[in-house]
């Protein structure tokens, strides 16, 4: 055994014990066949601050490097067919309004997909709801944008309007806190649509997957308008 990633893989019981491996911002998440093959003390000696076992899920807190460890372990496992299990998640529209493609967003960072792939809504109502169950991993203090992470580790950024950061929170009310678990359909942000219309560059609100490496394919339903909560895209996951 010559490298740390191999040692981590072995401490999780080896490739055959690992039908799924994933990571979020600070945790390496493994779904294992048999938790008895997992060696917590070795994981800790390899840098995990804590190891949490719940059912068949093993979460090792490796901090910021968790995602890199996942990447290295996936390379080690390589083409092992038992590891790739496609999963699908469905996103509801976080707002009511006209459905647009990201290329129609008047801001390069979104239209050129620098932040990731997704869609945009031109809202007809000043209300943002959760598109899917998840955890709030980011809430801007100005309340104009937030990040949601699904249980499967997909990170979704909802950004109300363009250049709304300059409104400095005026007209926005965040209804959730950092770290809070939310259910699909739960109200997250309320905003003054007229104020955004008159003060920001645009009301067009991008909804973007910021870690597209987790997504194999994004299927858009091709709607022209959507009601908040209406199914708008499905994601096929790369895990």
């Amino acid at each position, binding site marked *: 055994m010559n490298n740390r990633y191999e040692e981590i893989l072995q401490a999780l019981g080896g490739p055959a014990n690992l039908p799924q491996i994933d990571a979020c*911002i600070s945790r390496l998440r493994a779904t294992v066949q048999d938790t008895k093959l997992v060696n917590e003390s070795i994981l800790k000696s390899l840098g995990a601050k804590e190891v949490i076992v719940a059912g068949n899920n093993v979460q090792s807190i490796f*901090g*910021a*490097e*968790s*995602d*890199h460890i996942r990447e290295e372990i996936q390379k080690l496992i390589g083409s092992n067919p038992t590891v790739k299990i496609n999963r699908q998640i469905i996103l509801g529209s976080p707002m009511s309004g006209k459905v647009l493609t990201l290329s129609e967003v008047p*801001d*390069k*960072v979104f239209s050129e997909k*620098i*932040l*990731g792939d997704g869609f945009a809504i031109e809202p007809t109502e000043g209300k943002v709801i959760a598109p899917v169950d998840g955890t709030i*991993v*980011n809430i*801007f*203090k100005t309340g104009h*944008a937030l*990040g949601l*992470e699904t249980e499967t580790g997909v*990170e979704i*950024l909802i*950004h109300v309007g363009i250049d709304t*950061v*300059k409104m400095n929170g005026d007209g926005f009310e965040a209804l959730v806190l*950092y770290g809070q678990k939310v259910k699909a359909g739960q109200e997250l942000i309320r905003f003054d649509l007229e104020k955004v219309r008159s003060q920001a560059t645009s009301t067009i609100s991008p909804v973007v997957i*910021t*870690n597209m490496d987790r997504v194999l394919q994004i299927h858009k339903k091709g709607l022209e308008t959507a009601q908040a909560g209406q199914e708008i895209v499905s994601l096929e996951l790369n895990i």
Partner: protein
Amino acid sequence: MTLEKTFKLESQDGLHARPAGLFVKCLAPYQVTVEVELRGQKKNGKSIMSLMSLGASPGDDLKITVTGNDADSALKCIEDLFAKRFSAE
């Protein structure tokens, strides 16, 4: 190779969506791991969501640690971004 440098954030509105996106985009071609530290929080510099969750404001000092074969090229790219104050062009 590991390189470390501290940068003062001077972009107008802090490390919000646009600068975080540009930061990650500039690192994407390089085989490196990047850690960004502010007030004791360490975050993955190749993750947009992770960077935004630092809540960095103008005037904050960000300690950036780049590890990997391409560390010097990656750090140069970050230096350029800070020098241009994250303006997109």
